[in-house]
């Protein structure tokens, strides 16, 4: 299995989801080898192999590896150094330029190399994605396995390379697409890698029906090749020591990266409408992102800075604290393949409002759903949850029952079904 990040070194939901999937598969009795670009230490590993691609010695003389090395050289020569714009500034800019280590073994003509990567989202992301693929082609021959499973575009070249080297079936798992992240202004290079991965994959797993439709419509993939496996949620021990709130008013929370994809502007505009009728409420926008300054400007322009707060980037315990002091949770995403945050909110006893343009709306019955652009409907929903305790109480109680249906074990059995099907196809595919 190829992934770009693994807890605790994560920048978003991808690492968390990978962790959930691995845990679920292990419970199903599936053996997993998980490859990341670089290990930092402290990763949660139990009963499975975690491989740091930066530490693997790769023989570049093997034809498939040679092919991918050439592709890497091409990318290194032609890709502009540019940060990948859709990720948090906190998470980017860490790229350390490390020299490629080269070990030449005297009596052998084979050239053994190590490819160092940062595993971050810095300026050399495209190069790293391809380095990772070179290493993957080498790893493909090292371990015993039946299926190759890669998570999102960053690891698709690796998935393809491993498939070419081993002839084993390749599953592309779509957690998010470039359409979700950037709307219509897609990054062509990323889109191309996504499409290539989807086309070369033997099967595709989408995290929701919503995402499955994007895969079919925007990437032209045949529908029968795409299955839906919803994400799960890791149950946390409910913390009874609820922190006393610093503020008396009810708190309405937006939490996540403040980017185009997450629809922060609709939250701000709805807040203004709510404050016009319910003055004793506070809005919090928790997180960081490239739209944060613009949102601060908008809040000031709408003259509600004394009731609308920004926290900046939150760490783990602060995220929990934020849920604990929230009375309503809003996820107005413009396009959300799944969306794990509302599930965490429900787990923390907070009623949620989610956009219809999200995968999670397919599995949450007990949530208010609005179109992301419908600011009036969003404002109405917030006001209703604030003012009618019976309503918010009902959502709190029943939301929990939705959660029972969502666990990683269930997701894993969906994934295993896909594996089983593929295993039987193997002879055909490898021809």
């Amino acid at each position, binding site marked *: 299995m190829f992934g770009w990040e693994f807890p605790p070194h994560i920048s978003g939901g991808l690492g968390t989801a990978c962790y959930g999937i691995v845990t679920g598969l292990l419970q199903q009795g599936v053996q997993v080898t998980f490859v990341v670009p670089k290990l930092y230490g402290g990763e949660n590993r139990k009963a499975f192999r975690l491989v740091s691609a930066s530490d693997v010695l790769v023989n570049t003389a093997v034809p498939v590896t040679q092919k991918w090395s050439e592709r890497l050289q091409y990318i290194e020569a032609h890709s502009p150094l540019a940060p990948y714009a859709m990720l948090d500034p906190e998470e980017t800019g860490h790229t350390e330029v490390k020299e490629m280590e080269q070990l030449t073994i005297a009596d052998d003509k084979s050239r053994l190399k190590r490819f160092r990567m940062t595993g971050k989202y810095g300026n050399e992301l495209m190069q790293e994605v391809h380095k990772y693929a070179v290493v993957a082609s080498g790893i493909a021959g090292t371990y015993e396995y039946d299926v190759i499973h890669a998570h999102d575009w960053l690891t698709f070249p690796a998935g393809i390379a491993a498939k070419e080297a081993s002839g084993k079936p390749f599953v592309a798992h779509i957690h998010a697409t470039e359409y979700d992240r950037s709307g219509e202004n897609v990054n062509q290079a990323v889109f191309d890698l996504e499409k290539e991965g989807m086309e070369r994959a033997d099967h595709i797993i989408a995290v929701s029906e919503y995402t499955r439709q994007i895969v079919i419509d925007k990437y032209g993939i045949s529908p029968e090749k795409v299955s839906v496996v919803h994400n799960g949620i890791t149950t946390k021990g409910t913390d009874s020591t609820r922190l006393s709130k610093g503020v008396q008013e009810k708190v309405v929370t937006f939490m996540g990266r403040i980017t185009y994809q997450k629809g922060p502007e609709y939250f701000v505009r709805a807040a203004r409408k709510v404050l016009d009728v319910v003055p004793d409420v506070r809005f919090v926008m928790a997180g960081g992102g490239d739209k944060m300054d613009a949102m601060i400007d908008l809040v*000031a322009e709408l003259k509600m800075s*004394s009731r609308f*707060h*920004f926290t900046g980037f939150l760490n783990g315990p602060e995220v929990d604290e934020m849920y604990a002091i929230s009375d309503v949770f809003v996820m107005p995403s413009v396009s959300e393949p799944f969306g794990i945050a509302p599930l965490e909110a429900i787990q923390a006893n907070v009623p949620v409002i989610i956009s219809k343009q999200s995968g999670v709306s397919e599995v949450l019955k007990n949530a208010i759903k609005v179109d992301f652009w419908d600011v009036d409907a969003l404002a109405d929903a917030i006001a209703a949850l604030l003012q009618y305790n019976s309503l918010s109480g009902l959502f709190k109680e029943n939301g929990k029952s939705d959660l029972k249906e969502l666990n990683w074990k269930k997701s894993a059995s969906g994934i295993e079904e896909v594996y089983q099907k593929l295993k039987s196809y193997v002879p055909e595919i490898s021809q």
Partner: protein
Amino acid sequence: MSAICFYFQVHQPFRLRPYRFFDVGRSHNYFDEDMNSSIIKKVAEKCYLPANELLYDLLTHYKGDFKVSFSISGTALDQFEKYAPEVLASFQKLVDTSHVELLAETYAHSLASVASKKEFRTQVRQHVKKIYSTFGQHPKVFRNTELIYNDAIAHQVAEMGFKGMLTEGADRVLAYKSPNYVYRAHPASDFGVLLKNYKLSDDIAFRFSDQSWSQWPLSVDKYIQWLNRLPKQHQVVNLFMDYETFGEHQWADSGIFRFLQELPAHVFSSSDYAFIHPSEALESFEPIDILSVPETISWADEARDLSAWLGNNLQKDAFDSLYKLRKKIRKCDDQEILRDWQYLQASDHFYYMSTKDFADGQVHKYFSPYPSPYLAFINYMNVLSDFEIRLSRHLQTRARSIKHNQLIKKLIRDERLSTEKVPVKIREVI
């Protein structure tokens, strides 16, 4: 005979600590003790102490022929008391020479003059009281925060009993008039206005160590030549600047201290200029004209207006959110809350939120403890949110205790009445 009027501004704000949303309602510590004390100590060492010593020698040596004036904000004085008492003592020693005039301003170097008349008056009164208790001097002349000025403010300051006020010799109010005269405020009254000669002031304050400046290096002789070139009938050249110019904005190795040290001797030997205090200038020179300033001016940035503090939506919203509390504040009697109310009004907090680019932006950045105006804004609003909660809680408790006291008084009175009545009844029965 013409005169030179030296005026130095001394101000330090109480800078805020990083204050997160999670602190709101939980922590009432707003100010960064470490940062504030280290800045005060640093500036004291580089500027206040050496500059005061130099001035003390000059003032005593020339026995009153050399004179300077200062305004020192209340927040600067509070921080000297707290972090560097030796600075306070050295200013007191300076004032005790009786060759120093102290001017009045708002206690916290605030923007109250453009927010609320009542608030403005209260804060000026607080500053005057502080100056009197610290230095035994009663200011006669007023200088507003960053020389902010308009006709309405002048009128209000006149009503408070001041003789006159300092402001910027901004081109757009002066047009072709010279700043080197005393003017009357509009509408005509006895209230005088002294205008900063920004060219000659900024040659010292901004350009002194600028090696790309065509006049660098600036010698005392050259500066005296410039002064001597001014027409003889000019009354007063107002050199207004931050006191931190000496040793902090312009470092000691630029020769700024030597410039200041040599200036008086050269003025006396090679020119007809005398030195003068603002109140003297207003008394001894006949105003040449009425100065009408309908729109607010200041000494900040190229624009010389309020845009450094109230130029964008962040600043305006923060400003409105702050002054919305003024009515509640009037009912408050908690000394700590009232103190924080002052400190939160320092214009600096708004200055840090400026999103201006280019040359002005650089100046803003130099003075700001924040990496971005947006973070300055978030931090300030978090603090202000807590302040609002704290104020409301205090007023609720206060209202409750007043009610409680009234109730107790009523009960006691009722009881007394009934005990007084009882014997009467008994007598009646008898």
